[in-house]
């Protein structure tokens, strides 16, 4: 389980101190949790801290008993590789690698042999409906297709935690629906942390955390999460 305790992040902007997140405490259970709030509410900062991209000014992040905030950069990278998957708004695929190679990349980092790696990547791309796009470079794929490749890549090592940062923000309606369905289908077996502006998308998660001004305003637990059947 991923836990945040009194998570606080302050930046200095010239003479001024900016509080991006303050006193955030929450234990993320299995299933989908959406984090919503207006721009500047601290959503991105929260994701950066939870994923170990950045370190908190105060408080900490615990993966089980492991304090992520006490680990070195490389140790946090190791934790991300083993336990976390990421889907970004900008897709962030490696432009010189094909869809298949992009999905296989985390497996390369984990030391899988080439044959096994490519087999697993092909299976994942098939699951997201891109079996016919294996050898295409990202530049030859549509936005929706790129996001599905990114999702397949995030699932490559079957992580326990899946982060999605505005995963449908740059997609048309049809692609948005495809990606959302795939994403929430993953959320049942693992912890899905979905950061979004999109309240409609957030309501498909089991829980919604409302942030404002860097503080957690409230948690809403939906009795019947709408999931993929919206």
């Amino acid at each position: 389980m991923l836990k945040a305790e009194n998570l606080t992040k302050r930046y200095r902007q010239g003479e001024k101190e900016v509080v991006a997140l303050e006193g955030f405490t929450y234990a993320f259970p299995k299933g989908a949790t959406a984090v919503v709030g207006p721009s500047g509410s601290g959503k991105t900062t929260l994701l950066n801290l939870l994923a170990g991209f950045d370190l908190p000014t105060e408080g900490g992040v615990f993966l089980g008993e492991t304090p992520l905030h006490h680990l070195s950069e490389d140790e946090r990278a190791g934790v991300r590789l083993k336990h976390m998957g990421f889907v970004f708004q900008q897709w962030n695929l490696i432009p010189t690698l094909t869809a298949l190679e992009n999905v296989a990349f985390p497996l390369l980092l984990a030391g899988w042999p080439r044959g096994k790696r490519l087999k697993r990547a092909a299976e994942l791309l098939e699951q997201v409906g891109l079996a016919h796009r294996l050898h295409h470079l990202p530049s030859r794929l549509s936005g929706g297709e790129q996001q599905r490749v990114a999702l397949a890549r995030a699932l490559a090592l079957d992580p326990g935690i899946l982060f999605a940062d505005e995963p449908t923000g740059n997609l048309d309606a049809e692609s948005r629906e495809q990606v959302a369905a795939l994403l929430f289908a993953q959320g049942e077996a693992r912890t899905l942390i979905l950061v979004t502006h999109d309240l409609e998308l957030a309501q498909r998660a089991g829980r919604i955390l409302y942030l404002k001004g860097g503080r957690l305003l409230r948690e809403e637990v939906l009795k019947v999460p709408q999931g993929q059947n919206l």
Partner: protein
Amino acid sequence: MEVFYLVLRNLMARPVRSLLTLLGVLVATSSMVLFLSFGEGLRRALFQELSRVGPAIQVVPEGVEGFGLSAFPEITPETLEALKQAGEALGVQALVPTLFLTRGGFDPSTSFFFQGLPPGVAPDLLYPGVRAREGRLLPSERGAVVGERVAKRSELALGSPLRLSPRVELRVEGILEETGGLADNLIFVPLPVLQEVLGTKNYSAILVALNPGQKAEEVARALERAVPGIKAQTTGEVMRFAERALRISDLVRFGISLVALTVGGLLVANTVMMSVYERIREFGVMRALGARRGFIFRLVLLEALLLALLGGVLGLGLGGIASSAINLYTLDQVGLALSAVTPRLSLFALGVALTLGLVAGLLPAYNASRIPVVEALGRV
């Protein structure tokens, strides 16, 4: 291997820039190979030649070092007499006085190198293995024996006249077989004739042949002690002196080629640095996905090393071709291959190219591996 594949894909994704950088390293390496190949060629030619010289000791005037081909005739008949007495006491086999004369200019193709030999001494005493292809090996009082290459170049045949001065004219009496060595470019004439032309009774050098079992170093030092004002050089000493001179000249030529190498290194550094700046987000994604700093460091460094190695290998090939072309010319002109791309030069060139890549890639690789993930992903 997988990282290598990623590097290759990245270089191929920017073909024009990669190619231009490769060309920079190629030109730098090939110019270095060509510069240094002259030292290797000279070293090879000189040592081959020295190993063919018969007498083990060469006596020259004090202060003269190295091969005494162009030494001014300073050894007097009195010194020769003193050397003979000392040599007799030491039990040497023979002492052969010799005299050199060069006629011509800077262009070796129009120059003539004469070596005077005492009556009764044939060229094969000084250059073992030399044989007459036509005519005789031992010139008469007014005759000359000509090396194969000089005969061909100057269209000399048996009976051709050789005018050394307005009053001295010799006839070609023998033409030597080609040996691939110095003798191919020499004209052997009687020593008294050269002394007459130069108006001197002196000699350029005295060559000392030893009996089996005699140690060249010991005899040389004993001769120096017995006869003041001379320097007795063994073949080994000449070789050591030549090696020292060649090393100095190697350093000078390497220094010159460093300019080209520095430009090549800067090109690699610029390409890799540009590539790093363009791919900051990509590195951020890799780090976010779980790549450690070392992975990014290796990825970028390998890119620089690969560019440098490819440029180095191609530069070595181009340098080898240029060296062969130069040898075609010098073989035709002076009968010697003056440029050589030896295995040690090849290894050195590849080592320099790799070092270039390493130095050029270290800073970009370090920078790339240290970019904070949040900054690289634009998530600040």
